[in-house]
């Protein structure tokens, strides 16, 4: 018998994801705001026609969540902060204001606590640092309880087990051992341990020896990973530090189209989705669409100079 590699192609990964999400549509996305978001996986899921998703993430998200809402794939968002940071998320905002989706009021500790409980195999994670915010009254992940040790009133964040988690990292070996080379690893390690099905896109595949020579560099052991997909620039237009930086121009142009749609002119946004999500036959076709090697070189240069 031989060991099965976890390296699969994008179609195989999507078949796994679509099947799992049909059972329970709870999807969790790695990275944070505009860095290490698994955007190529998200585009593929949208192209496969996934609908009715409940979205989880590390506590801050933006472009990819907005894109999924623009593609009408989302029912509910369980993410504390949804923003492009320099501006609001246009489709998120429009969809909540017109009550097409539910955006739950949450905070970082509830989401992290809910994933910690799931990762640790316990029903809840106690939180002792939530006070006085109106978010507490509306937060669907927490329940008040009396601490059996101190008698204080605490909050229990119930375990949340995403059916599918998408992550993006810089490197993996064929067995699914993941190496983040970025400075921050966000909540990716926690999500991998908290979820049923974990699919990771990576910018490059490394030889077995690279992993074996430096095991402490592995951020997520393959034990927690179900499938790895080799997708160069798979985080674009978000960053994959230290390989390439954030494509702020692309995200800004997208947000302009989203804002136009919010104000009644949706033609540009519809065209964007056709050109970038459903249109490209593969990642190379997508990369050609966003400016090709010339554009990517600028983003690589910016990351290299940091």
């Amino acid at each position: 018998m031989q060991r099965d590699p976890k390296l699969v192609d994008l179609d195989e990964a999507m078949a796994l994801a679509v099947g799992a999400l049909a059972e329970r549509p709870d999807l969790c996305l790695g990275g944070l705001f505009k860095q290490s978001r698994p955007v190529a996986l998200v585009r593929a899921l949208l192209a496969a026609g996934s609908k009715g998703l409940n979205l989880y993430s590390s506590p801050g998200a933006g472009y990819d969540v907005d894109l999924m809402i623009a593609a009408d794939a989302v029912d509910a968002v369980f993410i504390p902060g949804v923003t492009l940071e320099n501006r609001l998320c246009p489709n998120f905002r429009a969809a909540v204001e017109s009550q097409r989706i539910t955006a739950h009021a949450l905070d970082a500790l509830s989401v992290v606590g809910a994933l910690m409980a799931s990762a640790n195999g316990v029903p809840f994670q106690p939180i002792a640092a939530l006070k006085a915010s109106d978010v507490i009254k509306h937060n669907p992940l927490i329940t008040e309880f009396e601490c059996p040790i101190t008698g204080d009133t605490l909050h229990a964040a119930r375990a949340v087990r995403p059916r599918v988690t998408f992550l993006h990292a810089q490197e993996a070996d064929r067995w699914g051992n993941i190496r983040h080379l970025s400075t921050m690893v966000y909540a990716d390690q926690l999500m991998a341990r908290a979820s049923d099905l974990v699919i990771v896109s990576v910018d490059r595949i490394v030889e077995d020896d690279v992993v074996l020579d430096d095991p402490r560099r592995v951020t997520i052991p393959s034990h927690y990973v179900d499938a790895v997909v080799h997708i160069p620039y798979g985080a674009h237009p978000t960053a994959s530090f230290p390989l390439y930086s954030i494509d702020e121009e692309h995200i800004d142009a997208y947000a302009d189209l989203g804002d136009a749609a919010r104000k009644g002119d949706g033609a540009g946004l519809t065209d964007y989705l056709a050109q970038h999500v459903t249109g490209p036959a593969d990642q190379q076709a997508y990369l050609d669409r966003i400016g090709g090697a010339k554009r990517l070189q600028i983003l690589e240069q910016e990351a290299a100079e940091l």
Partner: protein
Amino acid sequence: MSDVSPLEQMAVVLARDLKDRELGAAGAAALVPMAAIALARELHAPNLSIGGEMFFNPYPRRLYASMLDDRALGRCEASETFIELFGHSHHGLDFFFHSGLQHDRFGNINLHYVGGSLHEPKMRGPGAANLSYCHTSTRFYICPTVHNDRNFVEKVDFVTIPGHLEGPESKRAAGLMNEGPRFVITPRAVMDFDPDTLEMRLKSVHCGNSVQDVLDHTGFALNVPEGVGQTPPPSEEELELLRNKIDPTGELRH
């Protein structure tokens, strides 16, 4: 010093209030807070640690609007994850920074919606990630980069970040044991809170603004104690450090 920008003035006021050997972080809208922290470290607080947001002691080459990505970190001494952030949030920092869509008389901050209700909002905002540092930390600062009668309102539509709630009694009842918001620093003025009522009051106005300007741009009747003066402007040393070392690309002057 008439060419001092409002954001430079804000950074200087904040920097002067940060102490050596403290631990703090910049928060989500990091441009002015990060400038303030860096300035304090250059001057009187070389042992001040930046931590609590998944990294320790970054050395950015320039300022960015957000501190929460590798671009803005530049090099840093160490990184953490959201698991450690969970602990920091419970233990608290010495200082933190917040700003929002609305700020009210008692320093409460709204980042969720304006008009309507949470699930039927007229305008939906971004929400916020960390709601704990505002009360687990020793104190925090409110530092929005605009100051008008729409973002300074009598009462916020939704309390995302609790400030002084409705005064001392409500704060005690809610178990908010720390100082909460100490100052409100805007491009126009510095405000603090009356120690008896915890209501916001004018402390000083920045060069180029009058007391009346500030009142005209505040959506509630701001208390004006006697003897409100001008905010002490940046010293030459502060300005030189800001422009030559901390903010070489002039983000605070755009």
